[in-house]
């Protein structure tokens, strides 16, 4: 839950990368192999949940079918095979995107999840925009003027921010802006426009954008303090660097120094952490979506828990795990590509 531990892991994983003829290539292959392994483990967990919690036969035929009939169906569906055999079958299905049928939606579970994914991704995107727009200026300011009253206020605020549970933030926002002032809507996605067969966007209508405001703010409140602190810390370090002193000595304008010479050099760690946080944020949408009745993956997930819709649960698990692994791997590889330092230390 507390993010921010991943960078250390990233450095570490490269320590072990081998130094063949082409270390970069080996590094990428290795990282992808790891990702595949993680996905395999996730598939085992998904399979375990499916087997432990759900009774697929009961799902399929309802209650009125006799015990013998069920036994016959079990045999037919291969439910009497040894578990590893069943797992391989499950894996084969999963590779083709077949994770079973959601009994509530009466459609393939993966399809249900994919149709809900745009809502969640749009929410995460909007929250990310807010985070970028707020955390960069605040972080830089707090680093440049660490002793100013405003800096202290902002930093103090960020500790408070980290301590308010996201559902409480959401309730407060609803109370003030939706109920008390009546400025913004408090539930759902509003008017949506269909872009493709599975993507309904709320970003193209005024109504849709208005509906996005409160959920996006409350979701961003989870990560915002973390980013402010991160940017401040990185910036502080950069400010101490020799080239900054040199730039100052050259008489460049202060804002130019800050942005071009200073901030640019903090970007790498910020992007690295940011990429990983994107994965984490998807999980946080469960709470936000519940309070705002936002029809995304998280909302559907909690409903699936209530309805014991096992296939849907497993599909969500696999999908979110997949997203996280992809983002993590991509960030690692990009990091390895742009920062040769990582590889040099690896060769020691």
């Amino acid at each position, binding site marked *: *839950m*507390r993010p*921010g*531990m*991943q*960078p*250390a*892991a990233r450095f*570490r994983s490269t320590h072990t990368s081998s130094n063949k003829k082409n270390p970069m290539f080996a590094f990428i292959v290795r990282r992808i192999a*790891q990702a595949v*392994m*993680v996905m395999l*483990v*996730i598939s085992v*967990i998904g399979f375990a*949940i499916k087997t*432990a*919690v759900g009774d697929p036969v009961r799902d399929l035929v309802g209650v009125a079918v006799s015990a013998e009939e069920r036994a016959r169906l079990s045999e037919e569906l291969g439910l009497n095979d040894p578990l590893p055999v069943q797992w391989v079958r499950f894996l084969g299905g999963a590779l083709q995107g077949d994770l079973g049928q959601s009994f509530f939606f009466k459609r393939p579970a993966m399809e249900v999840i994919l149709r809900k994914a745009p809502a969640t991704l749009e929410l995460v995107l909007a929250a990310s925009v807010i985070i970028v727009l707020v955390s960069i200026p605040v972080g830089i300011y707090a680093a440049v003027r660490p002793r100013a009253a405003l800096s202290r206020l902002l930093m103090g605020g960020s*500790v*408070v921010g*980290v*301590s*308010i*549970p*996201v*559902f*409480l933030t959401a*309730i407060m926002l*609803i*109370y003030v802006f939706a*109920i008390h002032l009546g400025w913004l809507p408090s539930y759902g996605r509003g008017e949506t426009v269909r872009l493709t067969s599975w993507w309904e966007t709320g970003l193209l209508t005024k109504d849709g954008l208005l509906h996005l405001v409160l959920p996006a703010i409350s979701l961003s409140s989870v990560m915002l303090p973390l980013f402010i602190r991160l940017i401040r*810390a*990185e910036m502080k*370090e950069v400010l101490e660097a020799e080239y900054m002193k040199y730039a100052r000595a050259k008489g460049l304008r202060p804002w130019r120094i800050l942005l071009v010479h200073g901030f640019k050099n903090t970007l790498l760690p910020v992007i690295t952490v940011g990429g990983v946080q994107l*994965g*984490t944020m998807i*999980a*946080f949408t*469960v*709470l936000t979506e*519940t*309070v705002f009745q936002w029809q995304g993956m998280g909302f559907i*997930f*909690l409903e699936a*828990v209530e309805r*014991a819709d096992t296939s849907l*649960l497993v599909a969500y*698990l696999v999908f*979110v*795990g997949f997203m*996280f*692994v992809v983002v*993590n791997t991509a960030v690692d590889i990009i990091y390895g590509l742009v920062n040769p330092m990582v590889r040099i230390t690896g060769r020691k």
Partner: protein
Amino acid sequence: MALLARLRESYLLHSFLRDPVAVGSFIVVVLLVTAGFLAPVLAPMNPYDPAQIDVMDSELAPAWIDQDSSFLLGTDSQGRDILSTILYGTRVSVLIGLGAVALQAALGIGIGLISGYAGGRVDAVLMRVADVQLSFSTYMVAIFLGAIFQATFGVGRYEQIAVPFLIAVIGLAEWPQYARTVRASVLAEKKKEYVEAARVIGLPSGRIMWRHILPNTMTPVMVISTVQVANAIMSEAALSFIGLGMPVTKPSLGSLIKSGFEYIFSGAWWITLFPGVVLVLLILTINLLGDWMRDFLNPKLYKS
């Protein structure tokens, strides 16, 4: 050694006393925790004992608004005194927070030690498991475990197992934080001469790990422990908020906030507001203490 420890302690005390935020937070935490643990003594009623609550007292406003109300902070929809419920709820929160962190630490330190010390394949496997675990947030792990637990134990007796269950869930969900931290310190310590020396004398590796390496990894463990308690409390509140935490008959701070949300229009704001304030205060002060401790023990760590 003893002398050094005392010196260090006195320095710790000194630095602590010079920081008003740390002292203030400490006082608040101590007050809240004490109040929580003394709840059976302090609270006007026991909100977890159905014989003491009366539905006829439901939704009364705080005493200073409603002259007829004999409940300082009002009552909830079942007629539970909000003040008492907050006290009992705080106790549950702290208990789950500490319990979950103890479990996380035990698991994480053990796995981190083995992983760091053994290295090689064992390390690779354990750390991959940690990766998988980290790819799901606490909530997701907790929700999945919750669903499975309820499927296996049945629903009848949930009320009795709720607290240990939540400790187990939150504990199991966050151990990788510890494992990674401890492993990193172990890797650093392993190269040091004293470990080398111990190995040369022929001490068994279990002993080396336990007696020599472990004590030297304690600083980062202490730093993350504080923050993890705050996180565990937050997780419990979140789980209770979505209805997967404490049972309705034993409301914690999170479930009180949730039940108040239903009354957001009918004007019973006190059901949400007071528990919300206490929850934020508790998490905030623990976080502030954690920040102070991190600054004090290892200024370099501050970055992450």
